[in-house]
């Protein structure tokens, strides 16, 4: 066998690998979309049978601490805290953790909410960076701000956990805007099933929506194309992906922007792992691991209707940094818990969810990149015809469009938040357009993130915020 023949076999092997990856990934997406369709239909019906107002007035709703870490959030922090203060929930405290911000985050909070130094002791001892001072609002007794030395988001969350005194805590981004009923809706699984240790809601994009008194009053698609692509991406991820995984009891991610956790379980695990930028995913993976190792009956659920609005990046540079960080976070949390891979001790998490994230989401972009190279090589060497390659890419695009259009359909089936028909048509258009450039760009960032993770790159990178578009009152 000569070199050319061996090379040809290797090339064919890579092509088959890329093809298998493509088929498996898209089949999984299709399956989760179908499952999500069924689940959402049932869920929206169930919601009609539940009186949220009654739940809100119920003394059975457990007290909860909202933990909002803030690092250089001067443009959004006041509005975001106002949104938290408007929560319709019987009993809650807000802990804003100023993680050593270098801008005027602390000053703005002190002035806006009339903060003064106060005494408050930690009730857990998760190791963290030094706490400098604790503040409490003179006007709003449930609002506290903890000023600490910079230690990263996970470290700030750990401070919040240490200082919270309630059975549940809610981890947020300081720039997230929670809808007024978001908390009671996301806590519902904890009421209905005492085994619940974590629950997460949906994240929606607030760019160019109107915000009044910390609440989104007018929903519309962002003006910038890059942000619009992300709206579609989020719909795909939350409406189709997470709901579908939840149906199978395989939730492995709860977004760091909005998730509720049983405090005791998280404290028993030692809190958030600080040596990662993917602390949100790492926490969920470790929750599965901890509960299964300790034989604790548990549930981790995704709830489709509680909404946290968040600002997404609007420039290629910042978006690239975010996606790079997400991929590094994925790498770090999967490697940190790699013993779960194909480990039957962790049940379906170890045998299905973990391998999926490992091979499809983590290694997927690398396989995709190899696919581009080997397809090109196969074309040049005459091992694959031009029409064959073209057909493959057409199928890949068509799959992408199907999944996006299905996600828009799921949104319309359930919560139909985008009121204008033109928004719907734009989303359809985006489903087509994103295949020409945006998808390749995100794949590139993910590959870059993967290799950054291999090189041991740390840190979050700078996120620029423009603040919320404040609506004009009537």
């Amino acid at each position: 066998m000569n070199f050319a023949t061996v090379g040809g076999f290797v090339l064919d092997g890579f092509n088959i690998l890329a093809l298998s990856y493509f088929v498996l990934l898209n089949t999984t997406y299709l399956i989760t979309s179908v499952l999500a369709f069924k689940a959402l239909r049932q869920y929206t019906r169930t919601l009609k049978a539940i009186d949220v107002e009654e739940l809100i007035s119920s003394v059975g709703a457990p007290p909860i601490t909202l933990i909002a870490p803030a690092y250089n959030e001067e443009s959004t922090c006041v509005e975001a805290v106002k949104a938290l203060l408007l929560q319709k929930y019987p009993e809650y405290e807000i802990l804003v953790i100023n993680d050593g911000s270098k801008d005027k985050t602390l000053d703005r909070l002190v002035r806006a909410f009339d903060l003064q130094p106060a005494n408050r002791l930690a009730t857990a001892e998760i190791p963290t960076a030094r706490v400098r001072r604790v503040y409490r609002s003179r006007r709003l007794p449930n609002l506290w701000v903890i000023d600490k030395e910079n230690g990263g988001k996970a470290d700030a969350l750990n401070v919040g956990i240490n200082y919270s005194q309630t059975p549940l805590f809610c981890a947020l981004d300081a720039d997230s805007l929670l809808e007024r009923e978001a908390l009671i809706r996301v806590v519902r699984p904890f009421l209905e099933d005492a085994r619940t240790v974590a629950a997460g809601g949906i994240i929606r994009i607030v760019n160019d929506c109107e915000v009044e008194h910390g609440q989104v009053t007018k929903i519309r698609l962002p003006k910038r194309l890059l942000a619009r692509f992300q709206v579609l991406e989020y719909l795909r991820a939350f409406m189709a992906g997470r709901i579908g995984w939840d149906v199978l009891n395989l939730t492995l991610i709860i977004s760091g922007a909005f998730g509720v956790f049983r405090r005791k379980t998280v404290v028993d695990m030692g809190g958030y792992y600080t040596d990662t930028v993917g602390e949100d995913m790492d926490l969920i993976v470790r929750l599965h691991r901890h509960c299964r190792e300790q034989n604790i009956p548990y549930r981790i659920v995704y709830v489709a209707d509680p909404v946290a609005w968040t600002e997404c990046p609007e420039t290629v540079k910042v978006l690239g940094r975010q996606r790079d960080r997400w991929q590094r976070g994925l790498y770090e949390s999967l490697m940190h818990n790699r013993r779960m891979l194909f480990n039957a001790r962790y049940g379906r998490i170890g045998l299905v969810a973990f391998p999926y994230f490992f091979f499809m989401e983590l290694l997927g972009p690398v396989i995709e990149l190899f696919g581009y190279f080997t397809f090109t090589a196969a074309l040049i060497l005459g091992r694959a015809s031009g029409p064959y390659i073209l057909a493959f890419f057409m199928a890949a695009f068509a799959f992408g469009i199907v999944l996006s259009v299905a996600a828009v359909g799921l949104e319309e089936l359930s919560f139909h938040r985008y009121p204008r028909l033109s928004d719907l048509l734009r989303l359809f258009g985006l489903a087509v357009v994103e295949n020409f450039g945006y998808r390749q760009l995100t794949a590139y960032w993910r590959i870059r993130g993967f290799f950054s993770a291999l090189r041991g790159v740390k840190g979050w990178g700078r996120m620029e915020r423009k603040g919320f578009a404040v609506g004009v009152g009537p």
Partner: protein
Amino acid sequence: MAALREILSNLVLQDRIFLLLGITIAILLVLIVFFAFLTIALRLRNIRKAGLWQSLEARWEPLILDVMTGELSPDDTRQFVAAHEALYFVDYLLRFANRFRGREAAVITELARPYLPRLAARLDEADPSRRARAIRTLSILGREEYAEVIVAALDDPSPLVAMIAARALASQDQPQHAAALLARLDRFDTWSLNYLVSMLSAMGPAVAPQLRRILGDTQAPPQTRAVAAGALRELRDYESGQIAARVLETETERELLAAALRLVGDVGSPEFLGPIRRLARTDDPVVRGLALRALGRLGTDDDLLLLRQGMEDQSQWVALHAARGLRQAGGNHLLEELVITGHSKSDLARQVLAEGNSS
């Protein structure tokens, strides 16, 4: 079929894959068109539904006002509700039912009455969410008339339906259903303890004797007894202190002990201090903390030392309970001393003293 098989057998592998890709693309294109049309159809349905509701509201709103002011009798309204609109009308009335009280609420119930049998028929449907919604509506608009149906729903195979029925029955003006509800408490064993406690305590003091019986029943599941203890605490039932103290002496299950300690702490008296002091030294930090809390409420000067020692506990929760207990038991001077001397627990003492000043 044979011809197709022959064509396929003549194709090389790459051509087969090519064919497969072609078929896949065709299927995907069909799916794209299907989902797009489905989405637009859903949007149109949503628009139509919103429009329908708008016209129904416009027609029914003056009607409701006329009935409220006595210009129209509830019976007269029937001509304005077509047969196919009956359940929409019930939904519309449901919005007012939660807002109105007294005579207005009775009028709303009266308006809904002729249409409720159609709703009750939904209880035979397979979809649990529809049954749950029917139970919720019946419990608001036809609670007395459909009480039996609601009680029967406690045994519905769907936990959602059963819980909505339970929640509907758990109200102060219906103590007659307490027995039915309490007999099925174990059906709700996956629900949050606090939620169940809130539900039972909503039934008011009339249910206390039955709750006491459950708390004292050593054959009942510990979770059910813990719920009973929680509800008795919410009801401030002083007669249950003795039973709770007995639980502290004989039981070992953490959740039950915790609930009994909370109950004793709130409704007990110093005569129950024996088991509380014993539990303040137990290994379980949850039980230990709650025992110190109870000690703070019921304890005497003899307990100040134990509470002060509790502040040194390795669990910060226990230390916090102990410090708060110390303040409640009249040990402020000990806390102040810690602050003045700059003791390692001075921050804790300062916080608890500040809490005392602000409360």
